[in-house]
């Protein structure tokens, strides 16, 4: 099965990403709720990159690779935009977001709550965000 996706940096491509992820997760024994959570977490990271690191430039792209075994699923997201270090990002308090009437800022909270391991590496020309979901975990 195809487990790689090249996603051009347009917000309208997020539905294509979800479709790809649904297919990749088809043969897992995950519940509908868990499957949706995983799709959501990967989309949040990709949406963040598309909007903030690539300013929705359709000539830019990000690359997603998915690998699976019995115990875990790993989503590796590579891009060459402005590095967004998800590990260093201080997630806002929900109460603060509400008070300031912000419309964004909670996506990374979701990623951190859903995924089991989050890794980030950055070199001169490439950023890699690796999200691991252990099967039979939270």
């Amino acid at each position, binding site marked *: 099965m195809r487990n790689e996706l090249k996603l051009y940096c347009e*917000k309208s491509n*997020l539905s294509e990403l979800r479709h790809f992820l649904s297919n990749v997760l088809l043969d897992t024994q995950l519940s*509908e709720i868990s499957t949706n959570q995983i799709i*959501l977490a990967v989309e949040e990271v990709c949406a963040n990159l598309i909007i903030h690191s690539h300013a929705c430039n359709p000539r830019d792209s990000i690359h997603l690779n998915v690998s699976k075994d019995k115990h875990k699923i790993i989503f590796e997201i590579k891009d060459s935009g402005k590095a967004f270090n998800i590990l260093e990002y201080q997630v806002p308090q929900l109460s603060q977001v509400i008070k300031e009437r912000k*419309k964004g800022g*909670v996506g990374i*909270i*979701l990623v951190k709550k859903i995924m089991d391991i989050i890794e980030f590496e950055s070199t001169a020309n490439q950023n890699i965000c690796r999200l691991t979901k252990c099967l039979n975990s939270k």
Partner: protein
Amino acid sequence: MLNIEKTKVDQHIILTLDGEVDASNSVELDMAIQQLLADRVSKILIDGSSLEYISSAGLGVFMSYLEDFEKTGVRFVIYGLNTKVKNVFHILGLDQLLAIKDSEQGALEVLYEE
């Protein structure tokens, strides 16, 4: 793809959300709610029974109006969410901050509560 339909019933407006809300179209949801507030609608129902997916962009829209609803006394109730969409509200704890009901009847009770 998201389709938003507006229906007036009694003293309230129902926004029916059909499809998926993500970063590409959450502005449509935002504009629909903004318009209701501009029209001074004080009772708003969101029919989420045909909502298949919501990301943080959609949740963010609802969150950004919580203060306004509180200050202006607007009653805002969401109902009919399927289990996976409801779960997304739950992960963030938004089910504690927003009125979310399973049925339209339950939502109406909150909307017209004395």
